[in-house]
């Protein structure tokens, strides 16, 4: 046995990576159902995706408040009873509001599905959005927000998004306490009626599915006044800021700077998107990346530094994000640019690129494990409106991309002067 020699490996380039196809159904009202039946545990995840995100709200905060209050009272159940109905069966009902969509999700042991669907039905069709509940929501949201506004990371994320998209665009918008205070019951009830009760909905379900699941979904959700989504969103143009560099003091006692460096980038439909995913991994997308090796492992300026493409649908941004010691923030920024320029001037070495490809493919292989991961990949493909071959195509790009192509992409996109730069202390 020779401990200095790595055991032979199967190259990830030879892995056969396939995304298990989903089953497709439509309910009586046209609502599409995407289903993955897999997994050993007798559990299930059901997501109801509504086109009810921030893009549609008439006033800041209305979409999020409506989404939150779905669980806070119907004509038949108080907020407490709704919670009790789920929790008695050990189930979790969550809701979340995004930019284009807003989601109600259910995680439950499969055997309880039939008991819980009526509660979801009630939330979608009979919510009353009680005034008392809105007041509690406002008060507690404002309190949470005031705590978050003390955190440099939170403030930095809001500011950089504002520079990238403009504060009038949903991707760049953020609420202050006064905005939350101004949310009115009338607007919430109108929003609920239009975007939930009679909204556009798609269902994603995965796990150990009961054999009569479609019959159950039809019985409880197929008769509601919902329709199949067009999977498109209103076109709202971003208006990026003119100034590129910002230094903000949020807390005079702060000992670290929250650094954000970002530039606008096209969405998944752009031919370079999949290739740039590989370049991003080399640059700052994993623990072995250039940024992490240099700025954490070599210099010790930070606990962690990452770069990523934001997960937006309409248009997106390439972002570098880290928290670094106050006295080394500027040095850390200089190193980020240094790494950009290095990717422009020298092709990535074959060995490093092979490592990144193997890492990416191994990580995707691990990430395809289990029904929840599979459905989440499909959901992403469907909501982004990309082709069903998107997954296979991404794999092909990872396997085949060359150092020259990566260098070309770096020259085109990793130009320091195109990036916004922000430090919040």
């Amino acid at each position, binding site marked *: *046995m020779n*401990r*200095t020699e790595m*055991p032979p*490996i*199967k190259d*990830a380039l030879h*892995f056969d990576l396939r995304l298990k196809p989903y089953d497709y159904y439509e309910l009586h009202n046209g609502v599409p159902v995407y289903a993955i039946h897999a*997994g*050993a*545990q*007798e*559990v299930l995840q059901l997501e109801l995706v509504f086109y009810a995100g921030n893009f549609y709200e008439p006033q800041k905060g209305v979409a999020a408040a409506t989404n939150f209050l779905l*669980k806070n009272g119907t004509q038949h159940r108080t*907020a*407490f009873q*709704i*919670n*009790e109905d*789920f*929790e*008695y069966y*050990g189930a979790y009902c969550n809701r979340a509001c995004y930019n284009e969509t807003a989601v109600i999700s259910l*995680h439950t*042991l499969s055997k309880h599905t039939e008991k819980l669907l009526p509660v979801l039905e009630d939330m979608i069709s009979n919510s009353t959005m009680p005034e008392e509940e809105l007041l*509690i929501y406002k*008060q*507690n949201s404002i*309190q*949470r927000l*005031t*705590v978050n*506004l*003390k*955190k440099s990371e939170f403030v930095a994320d809001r500011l950089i998004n504002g520079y990238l998209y403009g504060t009038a665009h949903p991707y760049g918008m953020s609420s202050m306490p006064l905005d939350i205070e101004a949310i009115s019951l009338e607007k919430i009830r109108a929003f609920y009626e239009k975007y939930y009760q009679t909204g556009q909905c798609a269902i994603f379900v995965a796990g150990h599915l009961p054999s009569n699941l479609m019959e159950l979904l039809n019985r409880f959700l197929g008769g509601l006044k919902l329709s199949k989504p067009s999977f498109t969103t209103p076109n709202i143009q971003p208006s990026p800021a003119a100034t590129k560099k910002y230094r903000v003091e949020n*807390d005079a*006692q702060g000992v*670290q700077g929250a650094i954000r460096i970002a530039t606008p980038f096209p969405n998944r439909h752009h031919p370079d998107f999949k290739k740039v995913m590989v370049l991003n991994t080399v640059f700052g997308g*994993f*623990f*072995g990346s250039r940024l992490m090796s240099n700025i*954490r*492992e070599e*210099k*010790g*300026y*930070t*606990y962690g530094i990452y770069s990523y493409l934001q997960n937006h649908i309409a248009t997106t941004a390439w972002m570098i994000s880290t*928290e*670094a*010691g106050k006295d080394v923030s500027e040095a850390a920024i200089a190193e980020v640019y240094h790494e950009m320029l290095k990717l422009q001037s020298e092709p990535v070495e074959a060995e490093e690129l092979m*490592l*990144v490809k*193997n*890492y990416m*493919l*191994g990580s995707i*292989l*691990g990430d395809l*494990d289990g029904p929840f991961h599979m459905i989440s990949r499909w959901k992403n493909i469907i909501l982004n409106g990309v082709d069903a071959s998107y997954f296979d195509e991404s794999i092909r790009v990872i396997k085949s991309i060359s150092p020259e192509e990566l260098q070309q992409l770096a020259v085109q996109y990793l130009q320091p002067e195109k990036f916004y730069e922000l430090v919040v202390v």
Partner: protein
Amino acid sequence: MIEFDKFELKNGLRVLVHPDNSTPMAVVDVIYDVGARDEDPEKTGFAHLFEHLMFGGSQHIPVYDEPLQMAGGENNAFTTNDLTNYYCQLPAENLETAFWLESDRMLSLKFSKKSLEVQRKVVCEEFKEHYINKPYGDVWHIIREMAYTTHPYRWMTIGKNLKHIEEATLDDVKAFFRKHYNPSNAILVVAGNVTTEQVRRLSEKWFESIEPGNKVQHLIPDEPAQSAPKRKTVYADVPLDAFYKVWHIYPRSDQRYYVTDLITEILSGGGSSRLFQRLVKEQKLFSQIECYHFGSHDPGLLVIEGKLVKGVSPEEAEKAVMEEISFLKENGITEVELEKVKNKTESAMAFEDMSLMNRASSLAMYELLGDANLINTELLKYQSVTRNDILLISNEIFREENSSTLYYLSKQKS
């Protein structure tokens, strides 16, 4: 039912195998039986700093991460007050790469000066990011010091202060490694698309020649029973007043631990739980409130913490919490509530077991507690809890003399 096999190598390394051929992946999880509770009070934060150094190269391999990434793998590690856990996931075909890497760093580290220097800085930045540069970031430093007089749970895994980390020397690192990082103090779990025979062969090949080392006895002083309530008020630059109250509870291996776990669920395990419904929704005294416990091996703490609604005094908030506690102590819980928290436990376990990584680390954790099969039998321990247990244990825990209370208040008012 989670199937697993178990064997022991000649050098005392315990190996557990959980084959699952429905996945293309394998997970390798190594637990070392050492945590922050084993540290010298003058050298705290060391177990965690050491975890960082485990990635700085071993005797025959210059860096840990790169070969693993080349094999399509990912990894991470964490340190708690009780243990240190290293885990990686990679395509099952490349399992041997993980054996090669893990065995070499159990054999010996490179002890690089540069790695120590850099990781000291990295950990200092981690300390700042999580415990200094965040509102309420120092709360647990304060509460642990209050609640524990003797037991090393009185400091956090990250350490008492930055100075302890900055002063760590290479000699400290070497001594720590020799003492704790050896087969006698480790458990290896391999899960995924593997067979027990394959794992046995690889374990013998890569691990069996490592010197066994000595089993470390945890010489940890017991925390004496608390005999009087402790209270403290701190003013800090935070926007909201916060309330914290903690009570001493039971060791992880005690049946009363399960009763305690269900009590925390009754009090704050969701939107229909008691504290949320009564104090956030009905009385509107808190904007958020939580009840939980540290799942620690030695007797831990049960915590109730919340942010107060503006204008509510901490005394008023505490009084309301204690009324709920008194109600619990006098009346116990209903059959429906008991059924609910048991169902919730069953469901939480099923969801947790979906992930191969979780199954592997649970097996390692349970084996460290003395019985890997707890992964299959623990649900029964929850199911055997009765309403009367809840009543009795509530009365044992929630005694004022067993508690420490912290008012963490906004400076802006003082």
